[in-house]
């Protein structure tokens, strides 16, 4: 049974789906910090990822502590600066066996990636453990219609080197979670249940009973299979359960922040071979803010561009793919311009969350967004002094206004992952394994 949110959905059920309810604010206590029944305002978590790294000298602020200033690459965050904690000096500590694979697996999961024996086939790898967003989903995503959502903008991914470079959300080595590139499709998926159903139509109940029979089939099949296939079907069963509860879920509650917009028309198709990055990311960010405001999910991953991605930043006059630019020492100004472009898109998302009221604050007050890449600098595939931002207050967990926290001892990037998980209420003691294992918090950014 879904515990949260109080009885808003039950209320709605009585009224019928088309009726907007009193705003969420009315259900908060007088301080706006918790619901009237004492349940805390939900916290949210997201990873925001882009490929191929930054230009460190133009990324990292010179001053540490509270008096840091925006650098060229951080400048787009000007309107949300107080929500930003800049983390520097940390290092990816899983074994560094292959550029990009190490950084992607390290910063998103803390587990060493699994290299697949090629045996005369191209080199590939998989994640060695769950990505941090999925640990968050297990902790704070169990009561919402969607445990988590996977958003992507650029389609120019590297698909030939295995799940590590292609996906940023992984439930385990064999369970990468496919991302949604199409905003219109994401909208339909998220908001399909807004549509009022005829309560006399047995359709949804029958769809659920079909899934029950499919589950029986799956268990019968499992009894005949070996261990690895049984484990895959366990994951399949988990997916069926998720879909089943979604079919039976009640429509979200409309509030002052959760307002159903017109369906977007943006579907992420190229125009003349050019990706519409700005338009796609704008709609995706709007949808993410809305999904959080409507409490459809509390966890997301946002892949702006991919590891070793060949995204072309046409809007700023570029014609080459990002990854190949990073490996040309003469083109580092172009790499820088691409980073600034991405930061502008990231700033749009953050400003959108800040503008979404929730009680006396906004969504950014109640979330943690972990921002990073698959390398520090693409030119040399560096994995020390990693570029990391932790954005959002997570309900007062993080320092506000944010600081520049710099490790002078090359601390483990997994410490930051663990800190984010604790910030949003995941009760976990460690993240990652082997060199990537962390049991320590980045206390420097904790309020």
């Amino acid at each position, binding site marked *: 049974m879904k515990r949260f949110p109080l009885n808003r959905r039950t209320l709605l059920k009585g009224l019928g789906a088309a009726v907007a309810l009193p705003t969420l604010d009315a259900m908060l206590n007088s301080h706006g910090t918790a619901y009237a029944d004492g349940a805390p305002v939900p916290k949210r978590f997201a990873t925001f990822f882009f490929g191929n790294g930054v230009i460190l000298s133009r990324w990292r602020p010179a001053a540490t502590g509270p008096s840091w200033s925006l650098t060229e690459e951080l400048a787009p965050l000007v309107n949300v600066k107080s929500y930003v904690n800049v983390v520097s000096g940390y290092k990816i500590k899983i074994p*560094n*066996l*292959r*550029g990009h694979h*190490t950084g992607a697996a390290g910063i998103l999961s803390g587990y060493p990636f699994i*290299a697949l*024996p*090629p*045996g005369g*086939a*191209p*080199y*590939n790898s*998989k994640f060695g453990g769950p990505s941090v967003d999925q640990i968050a989903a297990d902790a704070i995503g169990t009561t919402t219609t969607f445990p988590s959502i996977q958003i992507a903008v650029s389609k120019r991914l590297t698909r*030939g080197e*295995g*799940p590590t470079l*292609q996906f940023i959300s992984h*439930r385990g080595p*064999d369970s*990468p979670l*496919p991302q949604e590139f199409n905003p219109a499709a994401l909208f339909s998926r998220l908001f399909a249940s807004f549509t009022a159903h005829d309560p006399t139509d*047995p359709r949804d109940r*029958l*769809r659920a*009973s*079909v*899934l029950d*029979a*499919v589950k*029986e*089939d*799956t268990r019968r*099949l499992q009894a005949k299979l*070996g*261990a*690895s*296939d049984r*484990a*895959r*079907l366990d*994951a*399949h069963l*988990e*997916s*069926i359960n*998720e*879909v089943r509860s979604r*079919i039976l879920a009640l429509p979200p509650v409309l509030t002052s922040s959760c307002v159903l917009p017109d369906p977007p028309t943006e579907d992420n198709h190229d125009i*003349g*071979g050019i990706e519409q990055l700005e338009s796609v990311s704008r709609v995706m960010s709007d949808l993410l803010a809305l999904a959080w405001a409507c409490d459809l999910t509390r966890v997301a991953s946002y892949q702006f561009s991919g590891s070793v991605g060949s995204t*072309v930043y046409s809007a700023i006059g570029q*014609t*080459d793919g990002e990854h*190949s630019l990073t490996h040309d*020492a*003469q083109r580092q100004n172009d790499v820088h311009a691409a980073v600034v472009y991405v930061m502008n898109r990231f700033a749009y998302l953050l400003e959108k969350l800040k503008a979404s009221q929730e009680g006396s604050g906004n969504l950014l007050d109640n979330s943690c967004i972990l921002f990073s890449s698959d390398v520090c600098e693409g030119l*040399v*595939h560096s*994995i020390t002094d990693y570029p990391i931002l932790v954005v959002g207050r997570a309900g007062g967990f993080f320092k506000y206004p944010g600081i520049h926290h710099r490790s002078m001892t090359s601390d483990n990037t997994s410490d930051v992952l663990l800190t984010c998980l604790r910030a949003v209420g995941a009760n976990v003691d460690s993240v990652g394994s082997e060199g990537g294992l962390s049991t320590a918090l980045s206390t420097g950014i904790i309020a």
Partner: protein
Amino acid sequence: MASLLSCFGKSTATQFTTAPPTSPEDPILQRPFEAATLNIRALLSWQYRNAVRDLLGPAAAEVVTPPPDTTVNGWDAIGAAQLSLSATSVDKYESSGQQAAEIAMNDAGARDSILGCVPQSSSDPQCMNAFVAQFGRRAWRRPLSADEQNSWASVGNGAAAAYGDFYKGAAFVIAGLLQSPNFLYQIEIGEADPTSPGRLRLTGNELATRLSFFLTGSTPSEELMSAAERGELESAEGIRLWAETLVNQPGSREAMAHFFDELFQLRDLSQMSKDPVAFPSFGPALASAMRDETQHLLDSLVWDQDGDFRRFFDADYTFVNQDLAALYGVAVPPMCDGFARVTLPADSLRGGFLGQAAFLALMAHPTTSSPTLRGKFVREKLLCQNIPPPPPNVDTNLPNTEGMTTRQKLLAHRQNPSCASCHVLMDDIGLGLENFDAIGQFRTTDSGQPIDASSALDDLGSFTGARELGALLAAQPQLTECLTRNLFRAATGHVDTLGESAPLNQVHASFAASGFSFKNALVETAASEAFRFGAAQAASSQ
């Protein structure tokens, strides 16, 4: 070969077991056949669509939206044999199943033939039972057990009662059967092989399924399933007869077009970016024509001529439309508005796949050619050689390369010995193709300097241009051996193991004896022991 070994020796990355050797006298090939572990394998998205079409008709296939496939080790089939289905994927199967079923059961003209009976009332348990048994067997490629039969008949009867409509009830059965793992996966468990104790052979139904998806890209026909149930697939000869029938069905051409799209990465063409300033002629239409050109050459060689497949690499003709003719600077019949076969000039450096724009443009950057990517493709995809990963902290910082040709830049790379050992393997192949720019146009200068496109390879020989490289490759047994291995990977969803070397080598020997008829490779792959037998997975994860 010496350079390859030294390259592997210097690799700092995880050492993998080396690829199966390809020289027939190698002692390792004397090792007896050892079957590989069987896995359940999700239908690929296009196979799923084809199966829905064959079960419910084209209108139903039109509305399904199966999840996209994920490539592992070069093949979607390998990803499908290893990865689990996410909730997003299950969601897509759920809505696809419901929509396809609804379309099929709303078609008053066709639905009774899908049911196999005519319902006498809104609730007709007898017809429901018969329908579940016969449609279930078709959809799951095997008969249903009594439990399964009861479970799905009860779903159908319940839904029919809820709506007072038999067809609506049957629609929920169809939607459900299509969401069951028994439909979504090729399930291969095997049975004891009476001729070789301890070994598993695929059951008749499993083999019919494997054979049909491999050769026709869809679910087995009633005839094939019946033949399998009569034991006709129990011998290599029996399989061969069926395989020969299947490769001559239209579905086979389409299935192999998917195979070639994957192997030659032609589907990446729709996601390819090129510099619009440097290449104003490039756009989605030209990218699509590039794919078509390659498929036309394959179509002609494999299906029209049933000719020597090696000619794919050094053919002196190709197929162009107006856009490609302009790109290549060749004449086409003036009234031709589609593709036409053209003979390339005898002195042309173009010829074969490696001279086609699809390959040359895919294995390039948006503005510049990439000898490295071109060479890597030839080594990895065409010769099944492993290129070790670059050292993780590689410093690609070169001295100022302004005004240098691509060749000069790459040679500058070689100053660093840790790069040189592997780059020589890739770059020296691509440097011989430098007369072709980032979209495959012929050129004689690079950065204002004349191009030197001569190349000498330790293992392959000396060449200039695509046609000579193709001819060198065509003379290498590794080329056709690698093709048969790739065919096997796509067909079975795993990278071939050392234990499978012997039967795969036999497939290649037969392929060679047939004069490299690709159809022969298909038939012999299906008839090989490696295709027909398997080993059980560990029962527990310990």
